[in-house]
Each structure stands twice: as structure tokens, then as C-alpha cells.
């Protein structure tokens, strides 16, 4: 076991918790702006972890993480905007 592998395991655990949380919010019928914001925040965290650690864009030329994380935040932002207008 090295540092890097342990870190990956930890991130995997966080991703599982995030997924369980999203699923739970769906099961318990959470709806409305607060729920959407919460679910999108979870997705943002999960996505960022995947991009930075699994895709290993952490610590490389800023162009790449900016593009991919920028894509993630832009899409999530658009979704938030769309749900804000039509909930």
C-alpha cells in the first residue's frame, strides 16, 4: 500500500457515500430548489474528485483541469439555472 493507492481508496469511499446520498434524496422524495442545489453540489464534488484524482489532472498544466472542471461546473450551472426557472 502506498500513499497514492490509499488516497484512491479514500476517494472511492467518498464517491460511494455521495452516490448513496443522491439515491437517498431521490427515495425520500426530496424536490425543489434546495434539493436540486444539494444534489448538484454532490455531483460537483464527485466530478471534481474524479477529474483531479482518477483522471489524474491534479497538478498538471492548468489548461487541462481548467477545461474539464470548467466543463463540469458549466454544465452543472446550466442545469441549476434551468431547474431554477422551471421547478
Amino acid at each position, binding site marked *: 500500500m502506498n500513499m497514492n*493507492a490509499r488516497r484512491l481508496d479514500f476517494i472511492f469511499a467518498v464517491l460511494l457515500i455521495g*452516490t448513496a446520498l*443522491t439515491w437517498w434524496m431521490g427515495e425520500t422524495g426530496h424536490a425543489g430548489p434546495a434539493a436540486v442545489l444539494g444534489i448538484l453540489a454532490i455531483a460537483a464534488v464527485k466530478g471534481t474528485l474524479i477529474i483531479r*484524482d*482518477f483522471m489524474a489532472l491534479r497538478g498538471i498544466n492548468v489548461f487541462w483541469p481548467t477545461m474539464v472542471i470548467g466543463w463540469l461546473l458549466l454544465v452543472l450551472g446550466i*442545469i441549476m439555472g*434551468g431547474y431554477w426557472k422551471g421547478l
Partner: protein
Amino acid sequence: MNSPAIADIKVHHPPGDLAIWVFILAELLAFGVFFTTYVVTRMHNVALFDEMQLTLDRNAGALNTVFLIAGSWCVARSVAAIKLDHRAASARWLLWGILAGGGFLVVKLFEYSAKFEAGINLATNTFYMFYLSLTFFHFMHVILGMVILLAVWLKAHRGGYSAADHHGLETGASYWHMVDLVWIILFPLVYVMR
């Protein structure tokens, strides 16, 4: 093993071949436009989308999320292993990643067959047009990702990658993580949020 985590060394390019990254950006753009279209269309059909969303199998969606992040994790571990030159472990992790992808496909096929038996197709209504289009497009990406991983595994299995040279492995891994990343948005958007 206490060698330094190699991923922490500053490098200027993303892991894998630059060509796959151009492809990944193009794919992300296509999915991004697809998601945006979904959101805009939903704004005009909130009642329909909210009603139809309840007919989806959320448990299957969540289970598939687990499969994909597990698959992504396995492949990340495979890359971590090869960086320490643990070739057998790397190949093993890769195989687990492919199996996780297979799990995703099986669950998805059960989900689809239930929908098809109910006579649902792309012309059923706007929500199902999006549900089927988005998930099918993504489904095909999972298959493509698995094909790539399989090709990578064949080489890894023969010990073809090493700590010094694992360019192909990283290329395949980057694509596979992209498939996971897209689902991280797709699942809450189509199955959960209302």
C-alpha cells in the same frame, strides 16, 4: 512500498496520449450540449418530465453509478500499480474494472428490456426520447470504454506495460474515467432531480 506518489510530480500534459484528450473534450462537449438541451426542454415540459421520471428505476440507476465509480477506481488503482511496476496487480485491477463495466451493462439491459416490453421507444414522448437517447449514447460509450480497456488488458496481461512505459494504459484509463464522469451528471439529472 514507500516510493513517492508519482502522480504528485508536476507534469505539463495530461496522462495518456494528447489525441485521446482531444477526443475526450469533443465527447464532453457533445454530452454537454445534450444535457443542456435536456434542461431547456424540461423547462417547457416540467409536468411531463416530473411524471415520467417516476417511472424510471432509480435503484438500477444508483447501482449502475456504483458500478461505474468502482470501475473507475479499479482502473485508477491499475495505473497506480503500474507506476510501481506491479505488472500482475495492474492487469488484475484492470480486469476488475472491465467486470464493473460488464455489471453496468447487465443492469442497463434489464432496465431497457423492461422499458421495451412496456412498448417504449424514442417516439413515446419527449422525456423518453431523452432518457433513451442519453442513456443509450452513454451505454455505447461504456461498451467502447470496455473494448479499449480489453485491448489494454491484453497487453498488460502479457506484461507489456512497465513503470517506465505505460502510455497506452493511461490513455485507455483517461477515456474510461470520462465515461464515469458523464454518468455522474447523467444519473442525478435524469433519474433523481425534480
